[in-house]
């Protein structure tokens, strides 16, 4: 598994969201300029896993965004890892994660 999420981006629309399975995992949301806006996870309390979470994201945001997912049972440690990677790359968290983040992010040195 690569430390960065390398799955292809997909358009955030009803058809693509419906294709997802109800599994647990992590996801990223970006805009058309390839800027990652948010990193989230579908955890053990999510009603329909990644499908449900991405359908919620679509309902909240509307179309015009992209997403990619990674099925992962260790969704919390992977989520924190992706936040650290983003912080290491951009010296900041994704803008929408400022209110949805672990209490302490910590450091990661990418080689």
């Amino acid at each position, binding site marked *: 598994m690569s430390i960065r999420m390398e799955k292809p981006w997909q358009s955030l629309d009803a058809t693509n969201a419906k294709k997802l399975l109800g599994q647990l995992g992590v996801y990223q949301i970006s805009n058309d300029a390839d800027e990652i806006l948010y990193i989230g996870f579908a955890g*053990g309390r999510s009603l329909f896993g990644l499908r449900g979470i991405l359908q919620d994201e679509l309902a909240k945001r509307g179309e015009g965004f992209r997403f990619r997912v990674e099925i992962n049972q260790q969704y919390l440690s992977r989520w924190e890892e992706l936040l650290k990677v983003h912080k290491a790359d951009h010296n900041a968290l994704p803008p929408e994660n400022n209110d949805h983040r672990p209490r302490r992010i*910590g450091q990661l040195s990418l080689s």
Partner: protein
Amino acid sequence: MDLDLSDEQRMLVEQVRRFVRQEIDPLEADLDPDASELTAEDHERLVGITTGMGLYQMDVPEEFGGAGLDVMTRTLLAMEMSQHRAGLYAPCYGTFGSMGLAQLYDANDDQKERYLLPTLRGEKRGFFGLTEPSGGSDPARAIQTRAVKDGDEWVINGQKIFISGADRADFGLVFARTSPDKGRAGVTCFIVDTDMPGFHVRRIVHTLRSTHYATELQFEDLRVPAENILGRVDGGFAIANERLTRNRIPYAAACLGVAMRAQDMAVAYVKVRETFGDLLATRQTVQNMLIDNELDIRTARWLTLAAAHKADKGEAFRTEAAMAKIAATEAGGRVVDRAMQIHGGYGVTKDFPFERWFREMRIRRIGEGPNEIQRLIIARDLIGGAFH
């Protein structure tokens, strides 16, 4: 060994049990099933309660403001504090405080001022960096991280793995080889600041445990001032070994707490769950599982309290701690497994805590010295080191 709890012990145990049931359990109903931290507001509120109970920072020695509990009482409380979903690795989500790194209580005054006291005030966090990719069971010989003296500094190069909390820490204790030919007598403990050039957290090591994850570290020409040596040059292994032995008692107690809660839940469930027109409680195969659980719990509990008792008397307790670690981690795994079986399909869902306990309990047979090494320790004490 007296099996009766003193009035004070009984009161403290009941207090902590009530805290877990009334404060922690309700929060876990809303937290992610794998969560290991509370919101800042909840954490602060619960710390207020534990402070009011006089149990905040209970592990800290009395002279630094701690509760001054003996090992036996502390062990009894550890068995209570782990009785919730996150209890094995995040007992009560840290709301009883943290003693920090035990080795720092033996640090010199300057080191205490810079590292121990800020940790106790909650301003700094530390990590314990011992295990390397070359092996964890025999750390004294497996350590390949090198520290070479250069003027008033030491230059460290090497790697560590399975290090918890290093990514969020402000400093850590790093064990490095300073005398290549001296085996376990050639290892030194350095206090390393994580913002020093050459300190790298290379990755999170994903395991069965989703939170409180481990990390892999790399040191590249990391320069550490000589005043950051903890203890003496080449005296690091004794520091590491002391911690490993001492930690095995609370480590065992936490496993037992989870097992006790799993058994409580199983006993409650068999009294309400019907199959084929009768309660599970009437099925002998189910009763046998509960009996085996009880035997496992009581046996491991006895061994764990015996280790605590010896530690309190100031006697050598290496063998007893090893026995407690083996008994509690193995019994804990069996008890959680049977409780899960009794709960059937529900037992493996994230609606219940068993699946998290099942995953995390598996790690306990490996962590803090694998059980095979504990058996080796016991054998050495029984028949003497010359036969190994």
